[in-house]
C-alpha cells in the first residue's frame, strides 16, 4: 500500500495505491487522519491505484466521511476500479459517498 498526499487550497488529493486490508488499515487510517487533523476539509480520495479494500479499509473511508460531515467539509472519491465499485455497490456505500468517474470531474 502506498499513500500519497497533495495538499492544496482547493481540494487536497490523497492517492491510495495497492491493497488496503486488515494488516495495513491502521497505517492507512493514520496517514489519512493526519491530513484531516490539519484542518483540511475538502478532500479527494483518488482510488485509481486501489485494487483491493477490506471492510477495515472501508471503515477508514467512513471515518473520513463522518469527519467531513461534522466539519461541513466534503469528501469525494474518484476513479474507483470495477472491483472496488462493486464492493461499494454491495455494501450500499454508494449512497453515502460522492463518487466521481475521474479526478478532473471530482475537481470541478
Amino acid at each position: 500500500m502506498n499513500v500519497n498526499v497533495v495538499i492544496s487550497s482547493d481540494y487536497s488529493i490523497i492517492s491510495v495505491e495497492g491493497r488496503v486490508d486488515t494488516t495495513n488499515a491502521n497505517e492507512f487510517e493514520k496517514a489519512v487522519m493526519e491530513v484531516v487533523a490539519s484542518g483540511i476539509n475538502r478532500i479527494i480520495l483518488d482510488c485509481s491505484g486501489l485494487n483491493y479494500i477490506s471492510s477495515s479499509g472501508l471503515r477508514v473511508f467512513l471515518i473520513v466521511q463522518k469527519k467531513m460531515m461534522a466539519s461541513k467539509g466534503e469528501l469525494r472519491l474518484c476513479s474507483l476500479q470495477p472491483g472496488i465499485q462493486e464492493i461499494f455497490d454491495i455494501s450500499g456505500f454508494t449512497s453515502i459517498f460522492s463518487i466521481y468517474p475521474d479526478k478532473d470531474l471530482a475537481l470541478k
Partner: protein
Amino acid sequence: MKKTTLSRHIIRNVLLFCIALFLVTFSVYYYFTRNTIRETTRENAIFLANNTVNRIEQVLTPAEKIPEIVAKMLESAFLSKDSLIPFLKSMLSINKNVYGSIIAYEPDYFPEQGMYFAPYVCRQGDTIHSVVLGDKNYEYFYMDWYQIPKMTNAPYWSEPYFDEGGGNVLMTTYSVPFYTYKDGKRTFSGIVTVDISLEWLTEIMSQVKILNTGYAFLLSRNGVIITHPNKDYVMNQTIFTIAKENNQPAMRETGRNMIQGKSNFESAGFRSKWKAGKLWINYAALPSSHWSIGVIYPDDEMFASLHKINIILLILILVGLSMLSFVIYKIVNKLTSPLKHFAASARLIAAGNFNVHLPEIKTEDEMKELHNSFSFMQKELGDYIVTLKDTTTAKEKIESELRIAKEIQMSMIPHIFPPFPDLPQIDVFAVLKSAKEVGGDLYDFFVIDGNKFCFAIGDVSGKGVPASLFMAVTRTLVRSISDKESSPSVIVGTLNKSISLNNESSMFVTFFLGVLDLSNGELKYTNAGHNPPVIIKKNKEAVMFDKTKFIPVGLFEDFDYGQSSIQLEPGDKIFLYTDGVSEAENSESELFGDGTIMDIIGRNVTAPPRELIHKMEEGISAHVNGFAQSDDITMMTIVYNG
C-alpha cells in the same frame, strides 16, 4: 570417528618437526665427520708411508756409501790386490747391516790371476769368511748384479732374493761399478757389491699400524712383494698377480704407478680376497732402491668409531624425544584440562541446567577469556529462558482465553441442525469458520410468534477480538429487538440506532435480516450493505437478490432502512454468505468470486441445505488449495417446504 586428543596432535607435530630437524642436522654432521675421518686417515696413511720411507732410507743410504767409497778407493789405486780381502773383512766387521761384500774384476784384469778374480767375504754365524770366487762354474760376469751396473754405468739395487747359502734370509745386493786408469784412460774395471739383509726391513714394515688391521707392504721395482703381513705373498707374488687373482683392475693400475716410482696422496680403493671389505691405499716410493711402500687400511674400520657414535646419538635422541613427548603431554594436558570441564558444563547447560559450576581458571589467559564467555553465556541463557518462560506463559494464557472466547462466541449462534424438527415448513443449515480464534461474522435464526421465521447474517468490519465483541453486541441486540418487532426494517433500524450511538471506533456490520411468514411463504427482508443472497426458485435459474441501497449498520444513527418482500414457493431455497466466501483467495491472490458461487449452486439446485453448503466448502477448499484463510467464512441455506 577416531577421537584425537589435542596433546596427541601437538606431540605428533612437534615430534615430526624434531625428527626432521634431527635428520637434517645428523646428515650434515655425518657428511662432514665422515669426510674429516677419511681425510685424517688418509693423512695418517701418507705420513706413515713417508715416515717408513725415511726409516728405510736411513738404513739403505749409509749402506750405499760403503761400495761407493770402496769403488773410489779402487779407482785411485789406494788398495792393493792383496789387501782386498782384509779390507773387506774389516769393513764387514764394522757394518753390521752388511751381510757380505764382493769386489769382482773384469776378466783378465790381473793377468797373474787368470780369467776370474772376485774376492768375497761374508758372515757365517759370528765369523767372517773369505773366498775368491769365479771359475768356469761361476762366471760372475753374466750375473745381473754385474751385468746391469756395467751396462748402465750406474749403481744398481738388485731384486731382493733369499740367500740360500747364507741362512735363508731375505737379501738384496747393491752393486757399484768401479773404474781404473789404463794407459791414462778411465776404463770400467769391475763391480763392488754389498749384500744387505732385509730382516730389519720386515721389522720396520711390521711396525706400521693404521686403524685396527691396517698394514704396510713393500714392492720391488718389478712389483714383487718384498714384505707383507701375508707371508705367502712375500717373494712369491707380484702386485699384478694378486690383482689378476682378485680381478681388481684398480689394484693393477696402482701397482703400475707404484713401480714407476710415483707417490699418491689421493687414496685409491679396491677389494682383495685376502682381506674382506673395501680397502684404501696410499703409497710412496723409495728414491734409492726404486721400491715402493703401500699403506693399506680397511674402509669399514675407518668409520667404525663414527658408527658407534651414531648409535649412541640415536639412542640419546630416542630417549630425548620420548621425554619431550612426555613433557608436552603433561603441559598440554595441564593447559587443556579445563576444556574437558567446559565441554561437560556446556552439555549440562544445553540440557537446561544453567547453574552448572564452571571450572575455576586462575591464569589470566585465553582460558580465562573462555571462562568469562562461558559464564556470560550461562547468565544470558538463564535470563533468556526466564523471559521466554514468562512470555510463553502469557501467550498460553491469551491463547487459552481466546479458545474460551471462541467457545462462548460459537455458543451464541445456533449450531444444532436440524434446529426445528417440529417445523416441517423449513429446514436450515449454516456454518461459520473464523480465520482467527474469534471472528466478526455472525448468523442467527429463530421463530417469532410461532409462525414467523427470522434469520440474519452479518459481517463486522475488521477481525479478531474487537470484531467478535461487536458481533456479540449485534447478535444480542437483534434477539432483544425481535422480541417486540417482526418487521425487518424496524428491527434493522433499531439495531442501527443502538449501535451507532457511542460508536467511537466507527466499526460497522453488513447485515441481512429476513422474516419468512411460514403460513404463506412471504419473505420480507432488509439488506444493510451485505452481499446479496442467492434465491434458488424451483425450476428456475438461481439469481442474486438486487443490490441494496442501504448502508451497513452502525454508521449513521438516523439512517432510514426500508424493506423488500418476495413470495417463496415450496421448495425455494435461499443461500446467504459473507464476503469470506466470495473473496476467498488462493496463493495467486485470485478471488473465489460470485461467478463460482453461482456455478456451484447451478450444479446443485436440488441439493438439500447441508449438502449445498458442503459442496460450496469443497469448492472453496479446492480454490484456495491450502492457502491460509484470511477472512471469516459464513454460509447459511434455508429451504421453504411450504
